[in-house]
């Protein structure tokens, strides 16, 4: 059983490494994300949003729905944990 799980894990690791070799290198200026998307944010976020930090501008303004959903996910996870753990508490 243990040998089997190790073999399966190594197989998946090999698959992931093989799939990663098709991705562009990190920081490659010719990668699609860096050719079209990054220049837009770098050039226009300062004048459009006004926050000097581009990461904050993207997360808080351009991708605002994403951040809203992320906050909702964290909130839902917390509320679910509170409901499960608070199940045995005194109820009126």
């Amino acid at each position, binding site marked *: 059983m243990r040998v089997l799980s190790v073999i399966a894990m190594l197989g998946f690791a090999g698959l992931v490494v093989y799939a990663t070799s098709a991705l562009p290198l990190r920081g490659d200026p010719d990668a699609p994300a860096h050719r079209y998307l990054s220049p837009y944010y770098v050039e226009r976020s300062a004048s459009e*949003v*006004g926050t000097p930090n581009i990461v904050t501008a993207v997360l808080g*303004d351009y991708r605002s729905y994403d951040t*809203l959903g992320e906050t909702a996910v964290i909130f839902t996870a917390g509320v679910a944990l509170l409901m499960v753990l608070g199940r045995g508490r005194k109820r009126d």
Partner: protein
Amino acid sequence: MTDPHGSIIVNFIARIMMIPFIILYAFYVLVHGEAGPGGGFQAGAVLAAAVILSRLALGREQRIVSTGGLVILAVAGLLVYALTGVAPMFFGGEYLDYGRLPIPATDGIVFGRVTVRSIGVFAIELGVAMGVMGVLGAMFDYLTGAEWSGSDAG
């Protein structure tokens, strides 16, 4: 886990040095998130660390916020975010269109280099920080809750 720690050194260091510094640093991270690394999520996590440290070192009696307060904070955080999104819709904008927030400004600039949009971004960062702090702190409280007993919850 949440009885007050007996050692006076732990108590002193936590009360005088660590917790105030952690809270101050969290607000720095929150406010500075506009200009450098940081933001609402990180500030909320650091604030939650301060809350958890106060419960571990000082005990339940001298905690910063109560459990109910943390739950209210978590709800209020998400509400701040959502209402910041709704507010521009009453002034001709779209959802989460901070440029239409009802803040007196000339050409989108309030004063100095602060724009209306950056104020909106700060408002949602504040909401995220409150939400993350509330959720993480309430999680810790419920995990170590004294009123919880393992037998009757199955």
